């Protein structure tokens, strides 16, 4: 599991879940749909991966259970909503900063997907 205190890189599953929750509280199925949309179908998460990751993220304080019901009239009570925490926002911010620096570094060296594909 990613240790937030050490500011270690996030695993792909943790990164995508935090990214999905950064735009609002969501339940498990909605997180999956958002991850699918954000990654343009490249990251597919099943219930085992999603809830295993959520457990570790809850334990690490990256996400919290949200008492809110977005649609209380139609929501099943088994749907638990999750929200990103302050530590989760920090971890996501640090990860995005890492990506930004990497893009800056590779751009400075003239490396782009097109130049690399051309060999």
């Amino acid at each position, binding site marked *: 599991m990613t240790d937030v205190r050490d500011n270690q890189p996030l695993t792909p599953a943790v990164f995508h879940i935090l990214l999905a929750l950064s735009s609002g509280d969501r*339940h*498990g*199925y909605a997180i*999956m749909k958002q991850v699918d949309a954000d990654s343009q179908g490249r990251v597919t998460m*099943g*219930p*085992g*991966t*999603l*809830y*295993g990751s*959520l*457990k570790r993220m809850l*334990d690490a304080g990256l996400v919290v259970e949200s008492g809110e019901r977005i649609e209380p009239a139609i929501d*099943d009570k*088994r*749907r*638990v909503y999750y929200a990103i925490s302050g530590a989760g926002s920090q971890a996501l911010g640090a990860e995005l900063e890492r990506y930004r620096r990497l893009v800056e570094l590779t751009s400075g060296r003239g490396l782009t997907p097109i130049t690399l594909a051309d060999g």
Partner: protein
Amino acid sequence: MADGDDPVRVLYRRLLRRYPRSFRARFGASMEQTFEDLRRERRNSGRGSFGFIVWAFAETSVGIVRETMMDNARVAWGTAVPLGLVALAYALWWVSDRLLYIGPLDRAAFGWAVVVPVWLAAPVAAGFAWRGLTARASNIAAVVVGTVISGVAAVLFWRAVADPDCAYGATRTPADWVLPSMVLGLMIGGGLAVSALLTSRFVHQGRPWRAVALGAGTEIVMVFAAILVTGMMMLLGPGCQRPPV
């Protein structure tokens, strides 16, 4: 057919039962709901759901293996911490018992200054190591730790007293020492397990200093009780036959 009787749903619910109890209690219902949402989405989009069901069952099974291994690793670690400290205390005592001085300390001072604190640290460290465990897992770890220490303490005591070096034979047979050894072992192992559980309860309540005081305090009481019982056994029990007149 009622929604709850859907055979695929029933099978998936049965599969979820294979998760560790604490995980299932926390996420089981949500996982079942999410599985149903994904199935409904497949059905509504006109795509076949057979491939999805196979994939979801396989993916969930991998999750079960992963969570079970992590759960077992946590219990194993929670068991290894107190057992390691008790073994360390015993090793320090064993070494110091064969030397007159260890550094500036004679062996009695070394016992009180080093061996006893390490021993007292065992239940306290266990209580903190069990922080991430459920109450049931903590109880399992306590039973394992208590049983191992009870057994080892009983065997060590029995070996020390059952065969005294007597020229004309001992007053008691080795079999006479089995029950007292078991009682003493239970006092030592059970005392440590109870101290660790008490520490763990207060750690769970977010009161670490009270946990340390209570865990070490209970263990001190149990150690002195065990010393008292051992002393009484040594006074009343072992002895050698008088030479024939």
